């Protein structure tokens, strides 16, 4: 098990390294973004670029890039976006918003998803199941931004229950009721998809488990239906469901670019979109690293958690 985990992690870093290398070279092959601002001295700007080493050969820049990142976690300075501020601290300053919104949404969504899924599985092929399954189908297919528009229009503009955009940190502290209330529309919009996905998953797993022979045995030996389901069926269904939830938790760091844009959440995703719009390559590289890392880490964590949760699964073992 340990060997497998170590191997997976090493492989992850190798993949990360290759991806970063590809991105770095492709970015550096592009011309530096033109200095458009009028009131800035172009010569001065060029001097600054030279000092930061943007005119050196790509291989030298590449070496310096890794040296800075690995020795001092220095991802460079913002050029077009947050000019002359260090990239990583700016991103970390934005991260709490993204994390908070997504954390709220999955904390609400997971119990709901499990409850609906279990209910649908227990009522399989009855009308309750049909209703839930149809809704799940609709909610997993409809793009998340459509709910966001609906939520924003009806709850924020028509009923005026919530603020249409998330408050900034000057308006309310991050961990406050006011801030939470302003996040509710975004949380709801994100939640629909998660609830639907989890419901579908739980229903599929549980209804498969329920047909198992050991369920019949459990009933035969005298357990009530409730006991049989909670002690036997749920445990076995959880083997598959739990890793998915764990993967979901890592995913909250990444958040949703489009929801952040719609509700003007000053999160890490918005920085990414902005950095692409204004061609700030340092931010772009750091964000690429961040998102790639999250993707890789959630994959690994999901895989490994199978091994931890279910003793029957030996990860990476030979046949």
């Amino acid at each position: 098990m340990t060997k497998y985990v170590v191997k997976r992690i090493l492989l992850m870093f190798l993949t990360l390294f290759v991806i970063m290398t590809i991105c770095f070279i492709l970015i550096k092959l592009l011309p530096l973004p033109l200095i458009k601002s009028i009131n800035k001295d172009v010569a001065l700007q060029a001097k600054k670029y030279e000092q930061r080493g943007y005119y050196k050969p790509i291989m030298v820049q590449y070496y310096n890039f890794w040296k800075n990142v690995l020795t001092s976690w220095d991802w460079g300075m913002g050029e077009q976006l947050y000019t002359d501020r260090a990239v990583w601290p700016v991103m970390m300053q934005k991260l709490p918003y993204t994390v908070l919104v997504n954390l709220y949404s999955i904390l609400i969504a997971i119990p709901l998803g499990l409850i609906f899924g279990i209910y649908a599985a227990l009522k399989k092929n009855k009308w309750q199941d049909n209703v839930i399954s149809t809704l799940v189908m609709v909610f997993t297919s409809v793009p998340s931004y459509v709910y966001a528009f609906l939520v924003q229009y009806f709850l924020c503009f028509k009923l005026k229950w919530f603020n249409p955009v998330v408050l900034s940190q000057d308006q309310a502290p991050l961990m406050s009721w006011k801030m939470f209330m302003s996040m509710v529309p975004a949380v709801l919009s994100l939640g629909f998809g998660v609830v639907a996905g989890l419901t579908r998953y739980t229903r599929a797993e549980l209804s498969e488990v329920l047909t198992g022979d050991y369920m019949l045995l459990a009933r035969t030996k005298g357990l009530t239906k409730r006991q049989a389901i909670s002690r036997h069926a749920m445990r076995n269904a959880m083997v598959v469901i739990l890793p998915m939830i764990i993967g979901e938790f890592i995913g909250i760091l990444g958040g949703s670019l489009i929801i952040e844009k719609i509700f003007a959440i000053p999160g890490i995703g918005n920085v990414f979109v902005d950095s692409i719009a204004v061609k700030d390559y340092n931010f772009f590289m750091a964000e690429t690293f961040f998102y790639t890392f999250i993707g890789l880490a959630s994959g690994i964590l999901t895989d490994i958690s199978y091994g931890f949760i279910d003793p029957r699964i030996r990860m990476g073992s030979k046949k």
Partner: protein
Amino acid sequence: MQNELNGQFPKIPKEKLTLIQRDRRITDQKLETKSIGYFKDVWLRFKKDKSAVVAFVLIMILLLFSMFVPFISPMDVSFREESFAYMLPKMFNNTGFWDGTFATEQTQGGFDILRGIGVESGLSPVVGTVRESEASDGTKRYSFRQDSYCTPGYEIKVLGEKEYKAMMAYQDEHNIQILYPVPVTWNVKFNGYSAGNYWYKLKDERPTSSGEAVYDENGNYIPNYLTSDNPNAGDYTSLRLPGDNGGEDGKTWYTYAMKVQGGYRVRINLYNDFIFRNGFKPVFVFGTNVYGQDIFSCLAYGGQLSFILAISVCLINFVIGAVYGAVEGYYGGTTDIVMERISDILGYMPFIVIATLFKLHLQEQVGPLFSLLFAFVLTGWIGMAARVRMQFYRFKGHEYVLAARTLGARDRRLIFKHIFPNSLGTIITGSILAIPAVIFSESMLSYLGIIDLNTSSMTSIGTMLSNGHDCLRTYPHVILFPALFISILEISFNLFGNGLRDAFNPSLRGAED
């Protein structure tokens, strides 16, 4: 026994032996019943899934809509009527539903202006019954349904000589009044509506005017046009308003145009001006957006782009993924490991990063659409390859493959003739289910503004959503139709794909019955 029997006929004369068949070959008899092939079976089972069939029909309707509306519709993406921005959807006339009207409540001034627009040209923004009420401060309030198509009203504009002449000729020919007399207050910059709408005697003629009118003894508006003793002032020789008969002294003619540098200053009725310039009445089934673009036509263009992009991406991915996965799965071993690593690395690159890099590098050479297509193709085949690889691992050890190999079939033949057809079902399903994903990603990227597919001849659903979101509070119809379109499309494709997956899965045969 045999010998004994043979012994009975020691000598059979040769001429008694005849060949029973010589002219025909004996082969297996054809089965009398009709056989059901794999695809026929799939079709039979697909037909039973009603929701999938409905979804398929919906997809076809949306596809036909996207493909044909651009040819039929008189308006396209480059069609822009800035004065007709945010028109409401209009399908029926005067029904109160989907007829381009909305309920509104106005003060005396606002009501006077809107009614005035109608009094002059007969194209009244005030439709239906008007209900009067009294506000808490004692002033009157009018609530009625307002026709958004007539609300633009009039505009003071300077026309070039050629356009002016053409407009007069059109008026004479079709008997439609486009040019209306210029009011005295034409150069006041009113706060509310454009100056062209203040044609009557106002209680207050300052820019802050509420628009309240001074009525004559019969309760009618008192026109406040510029007049002159020359009926043809500003070279105007065309239709005149009914009351414009020179006045009592025969010398007060309304002024329809003022000659200025570079042309004529005129006051035009925007509704009729629209007919003059486009040849049809302004009716927008889905309304218009901030630029006055017809949402119905734009949606068809956007849908067309989505369909073309998604289908071509899926076809290309189908080919690449099938070949890549087949090679991986068939050869296995080191080839498999190396190729898996490559697809792993590509697969873990965030798609938005790939799209951005392609855009930055290729957009100028090949345009935004192709750079996006390449981005989709770069990583899109991975899922397909993984699926094909799995199928190959499953089938390559089967006896029939072994038999074919023993008979001397080469690798290529084994791959494409023997194994590949078995995995076709999974692959087709995978391709179909990839289409909604591509459409979603495309709309997301264009919504975020990372990819700009908006040109004079194309638009994308994401851009339309983004435009609509800017006016979500005031004009929700702008976002409603694109959002509805993409939602129906996504649901239908998913239902259709799921139905197809079940139909292609032979283990479910007869499970529903």
